[in-house]
């Protein structure tokens, strides 16, 4: 177990460094960040300022050196300032993180609440109408392009029926009406995947010897399904959770664009378009960090649920 955790830890570091280094190098290839200082409509900047900025940002040094400086700053807790408006990157990320997390969490709950029970239902009542409904739901979820789904939801529920608002996340902590469409858009694919995985592993487990034994003992149907089969069938969907999160990161950029949510995905997208490297690398660091952290938790949970992994 200890070795397992250590290995996972090194993997996490490796992933974080890899992702930020790639972004950092690419941002340097995209152009000179000093152009962001020469503001539009201003008077440009003088040659001395240009040169001193070059020294300040370390542009005369090799990329790997610059990356090292950035990394050192991050380790010291200094996330630097955005180049475009000189605001603290950490502050910006803190502002933009809650909407993304809220929508992500809502989508995850949606995916679990819809996907897993529907998967169980579809496996238990195999071949019934419920099975067909569930599989149809999964089918659509896996093939619908996220962005198109979002636009069509807006067309139907905001433009035509005028039931749901769009364009903001509403006032206050949580106004559910604003969350419905982003949640469904982001969560549908995930719930489809959960549904398929739950269904197939549930079918497999229901067919196993120990379930047959439980049935032969005369255990009630409900107890067989939920106590004997369900716990074991949950392993496959659970391992998938971390891949789900990568999907959410991609999805966050798209849904936040469509529904004009002031979230982290949008921040990253804007920063990339501006070549604002402190924000760019910062957001990529946060996204990768979330992925890696979530992956780690999944691994631990996985080991907790399945003793074969714990003792291997």
């Amino acid at each position, binding site marked *: 177990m200890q070795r397992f955790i250590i290995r996972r830890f090194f993997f996490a570091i490796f992933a974080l460094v890899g992702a930020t280094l790639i972004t950092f190098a690419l941002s340097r290839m995209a152009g000179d960040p000093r152009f962001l200082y020469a503001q539009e409509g201003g008077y440009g900047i003088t040659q001395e300022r240009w040169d001193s900025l070059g020294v300040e940002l370390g542009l005369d040094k090799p990329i790997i050196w610059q990356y090292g400086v950035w990394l050192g700053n991050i380790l010291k807790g200094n996330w630097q300032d955005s180049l475009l408006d000189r605001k603290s990157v950490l502050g910006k990320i803190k502002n933009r993180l809650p909407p993304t997390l809220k929508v992500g969490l809502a989508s995850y709950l949606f995916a679990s609440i819809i996907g897993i029970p529907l998967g169980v239902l579809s496996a238990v009542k195999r071949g019934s109408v419920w099975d067909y409904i569930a599989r149809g739901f999964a089918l659509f979820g896996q093939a619908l392009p996220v962005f198109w789904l979002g636009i069509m939801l807006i067309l139907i529920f905001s433009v035509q029926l005028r039931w749901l608002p769009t364009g903001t996340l509403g006032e206050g902590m949580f106004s559910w009406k604003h969350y419905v469409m982003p949640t469904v858009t982001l969560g549908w694919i995930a719930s489809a995947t959960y549904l398929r995985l739950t269904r197939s592993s549930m079918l497999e487990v229901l067919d196993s010897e120990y379930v047959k034994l439980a049935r032969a003992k005369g255990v009630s149907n409900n107890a067989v399904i939920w106590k004997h089969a369900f716990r074991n069938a949950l392993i496959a969907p659970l391992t998938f959770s971390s891949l789900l999160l990568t999907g959410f990161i991609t999805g966050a950029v798209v849904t936040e664009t*469509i529904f004009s949510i002031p979230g982290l995905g949008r921040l990253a997208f804007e920063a990339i378009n501006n070549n604002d490297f402190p924000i760019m690398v910062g957001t990529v660091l946060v996204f990768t960090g979330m992925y890696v952290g979530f992956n780690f938790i999944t691994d631990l949970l996985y080991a907790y649920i399945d003793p074969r992994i714990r003792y291997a």
Partner: protein
Amino acid sequence: MAQADITADLAKQVGSDRSGVGQVWYIIRRWPIIPVAILVVLIFTGIFANFLAPHNPIIARPDDRNLPPAWYSPIVLNVKPTGDPLVFPVPVNVGIKEAGALYDIPLTGDETEEQVVAAFEAAGLVAKTKFPTWNHILGADHIGRDLLSRIIHGARVSLTVTAISLVSGLLVGVSMGLVAGYFGGFLDEAIMRITDVWLGLPFILIAIVVVIALGQTMTILLGLLALLSWTPFVRNVRGEVLTLKELDYVALAKVVGASTFRILIWHILPGCINTVIVIATLRVGQLILTEAILSFLGAGIPPPTPAWGAMVNDGRAFINDAWWVSFFPGVCIFLVVMSLNFFGDWLRDRLDPRLRQLN
């Protein structure tokens, strides 16, 4: 039970006595006819896009901006009182009946273009009308390009992009999987960790950075998608190789003195082909979706080349007035990806019983 009864009963069980609708339904469930038909149509339109498209997909006709599909009733674009220089800055799409009611103009919706204009003139108004024609079956987009032609050419773009990126991803992924599985040890560990890290990268963000850094060209998009497509091949081929390399015939080939390269290509690779085909089919759908997302975010195929994802994005700003601009390309993406998923699942059941999902 008599022999005849048993035979009839068996026939019922295996479904050979179905008739009519039951038989059709049985065939549709058993064979992927509809998905394959959709894919054949896709490939056909992709190859013969030049001959099939009724219009040039790139030339814009400003007069046809947001032209509705052919089955739509005519719409009034803007109306101004005669003599007054007031002009509406944006097209106001008013259904003809609504417009008539607003200005109290007696219209039924069945009038010809001239009649509509005449009716407005009688009320002292100048109307600019837009009449959907069968010449543009699906209408036109926000700058007046024929939608159907763009969709047809978009099929070609999707096809080329996915085919090339999939093949390159497949070659890289399969060879890495072969090497990792066969040699094991440090090489295996390194390749698998790289694959893990790769899966953890926020791909879309990095792809956008790459496009901005290196420019938005077809080659770069192909490279990016190839970089996305190789991972599942590595994992599955490696797993396959781990079992195959223990088999007797491989050991025998070694004894005979076959080179490592020969063993890998002629003795182990053929055993992985089924897995590779299945993964490739399922992966194409993912690639099409990713390409569409990148195009949607403006980091995909450079405009004005028609790409389905970019077309959906084009219509986003006009969703109130012209839903068809976004709707039809999205339906195409959906149909193609769904067909590929169906076909992939079917292939998996056929070719690789070990991967079979219980259905």
